[in-house]
Structures are given as structure tokens and as C-alpha cells.
């Protein structure tokens, strides 16, 4: 399948909105999710994506998602009917993650790993007021000497810690609310 055929299937998903290479199905103050069409020279790939809206998001990315379909160039793999069914079936599951609590369920169910996943868990604990768990994650970061954090989240961690120092956890919750509003303004309207 070529890029055009795959784009046609994604465009036909009911209620989805196209933003660059992203097809957004859920977009609210807690979760943004849908699919990304990735079309480098050697093939066409569809990736699931889901992000916490209460992060400061400069650009959409697939850090919490995964590839669900891939079509190497010039190799017949599947037809559009199969793909349509595959994406709709996947969306039945993914669309259940519509708020921060179900986002956590998704992360556990899909066994998502990596720095951005840990960052999402941290933000979510703060968002739902589970300060004990958020504090625990923060201590883990400070004690682990591993490689540097994702550039993507390094500046956001800094912003959160500065606000926490100044205004405590309530201040951090207010910051996440502001980030959520910014995200909605940027990607949902």
C-alpha cells in the first residue's frame, strides 16, 4: 500500500481530524490520541500515539505509542479493507483512554517503557493528587545516575521543580492545568 491509500483509510475514520502527519481522534483537557502516518522513502508505517494533554507539548510525538501497521515499498502486504479493519479494531481499544486515569491503565496494559512514560506517570500522579507517588518518582530520578533525561522533558522537569519550590504541589497542579489549556488551544481547536 502506498502513502495515499493509507492516508485515505486514516482520513475516513469517523470524528478524526488531520494535523500534519497526525490523525487525532481524542483531544480533550486530559488526553490527545490517534494515529500518525509515517512515510519515509522505504515504506509507509502507521503508529498509534497518545499523550497527556497536561504536559507542555511543543510537537506531537509517538513516545507512548507503537507501530501497528507497516508497508515496505513495492511489497504487497495487505489491502485497504484489512487496514481499515485493523485500525478500527485498534481504535476501539485506544479510544477508551480518554482521561488521566484511563491513560495510566493504557500504560500498564501496553507495558509502555522509557523516560517519557515515567514523566507521564509523574504528571498524572500530580494531576490526580497522588502526591506520595509523585514524590516517590521524583526521588527515584534524583538518585539514579543514568543517562541524561530526554531533551523533550528536561526543560519541563525544570519548570515543575521551580514551581514546586515556590508554590508547592498546589502550584504544580495549577501549572499542569495551564499546560492542559495550552495544549487544547494548540492541538484541539
Amino acid at each position: 500500500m502506498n502513502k495515499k491509500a493509507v492516508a485515505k483509510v486514516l482520513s475516513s475514520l469517523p470524528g478524526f481530524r488531520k494535523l500534519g502527519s497526525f490523525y487525532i481522534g481524542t483531544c480533550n483537557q486530559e488526553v490527545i490520541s490517534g494515529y500518525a502516518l509515517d512515510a519515509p522513502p522505504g515504506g509507509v508505517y502507521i503508529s498509534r500515539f497518545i499523550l497527556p494533554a497536561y504536559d507542555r507539548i511543543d510537537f506531537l510525538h509517538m513516545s507512548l505509542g507503537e507501530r501497528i501497521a507497516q508497508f515496505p515499498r513495492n511489497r504487497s502486504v495487505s489491502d485497504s479493507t484489512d487496514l481499515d479493519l485493523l485500525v478500527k479494531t485498534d481504535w476501539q481499544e485506544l479510544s477508551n483512554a480518554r482521561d488521566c486515569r484511563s491513560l495510566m491503565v493504557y500504560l500498564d496494559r501496553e507495558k509502555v517503557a522509557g523516560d517519557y512514560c515515567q514523566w507521564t506517570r509523574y504528571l498524572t500522579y500530580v494531576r490526580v493528587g497522588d502526591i506520595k507517588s509523585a514524590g516517590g518518582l521524583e526521588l527515584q530520578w534524583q538518585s539514579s545516575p543514568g543517562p541524561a533525561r530526554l531533551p523533550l522533558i528536561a526543560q519541563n522537569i525544570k519548570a515543575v521543580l521551580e514551581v514546586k519550590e515556590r508554590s508547592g504541589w498546589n502550584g504544580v497542579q495549577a501549572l499542569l492545568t495551564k499546560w492542559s489549556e495550552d495544549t487544547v488551544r494548540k492541538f484541539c481547536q
Partner: protein
Amino acid sequence: MQQGNQNQLDTVTVKANRMVPCDQLNGANDTIQPLLDAADKAYNQYPLRPIDMIWPISALRGIRIHSYFAAEVTGLGAPYSAEVSYLGGAQVPYGTPGSVRADAVVGPVNAPLYAVELKSGFAVPSASETAAYRANLPPGTGLCSIVEAPGP
């Protein structure tokens, strides 16, 4: 004397930014061979002819080799992934401004063990290309290159 120091500095910088050949990358011993085989197959599928040294024929051959390699890597399945783009450590779609595209990655896409840059013809990864990889791959990701070795 100053010129000598500058040369030394240039040498050190270039060495620091040089990409390790994939068959010498620490920690890749158990997983690299299928990728080296895939690259060999791609090179052999489109053998280097004298005309392939001339642009834009050289670029066309490069595209074909990369496409063939991507299909081979996709066919390998987990833990191999073909053509993955990153920006600020996050996976993004191809063409995202400022992103780099690894020809293959090994391990979880969001936290790979290492990324592979494939080169065709006489091309080798440049220092700026290597620096862009370092800036955009997830932290801790190894990086290596597979370079074509044309016959005599």
C-alpha cells in the same frame, strides 16, 4: 603553533563525532549480524557501476538500497525496526523539521539499544550528521554505521 593546536582540536572533534562501524559497536554482538546481512543483500541487489558514481544516478541507487534494506529489516520483526525518526529523543513521523531518521533501530523504539545509519557508494557519516543523531536519539542509545565497501 596556533595552527598546530587548531589542527589537533579539529582532529579530536572529528574523532569524537565519528560513528562507530556497526561490527565494532559494544553490546551489538548478538543482534547486528542480521542487519549486516540485510545491508549486504541490498548492496548486492544494486551493484555499484561506474555510472552510479555520478549524481543523480548515485542518489537514485542510494534510495533503492535504503528501500530494500528497510523492507528486509521490517521482515526481520522484533526487535528490529526500520526507518525510525526522532526529535528531542521522541519518535516522530518522517519529515518532522529538525528530526533525524535512523535506517534501523534495535530494541524498543522509544528506548532503543542502538541505531544504525546505512551508507551507500563511498559515502560515510559526516560529523554534523553524527552530532544531529546524538542530539535527537533517546539518551543512552548506541549509534553505528554500515558503510558499503566497493570492490576494486
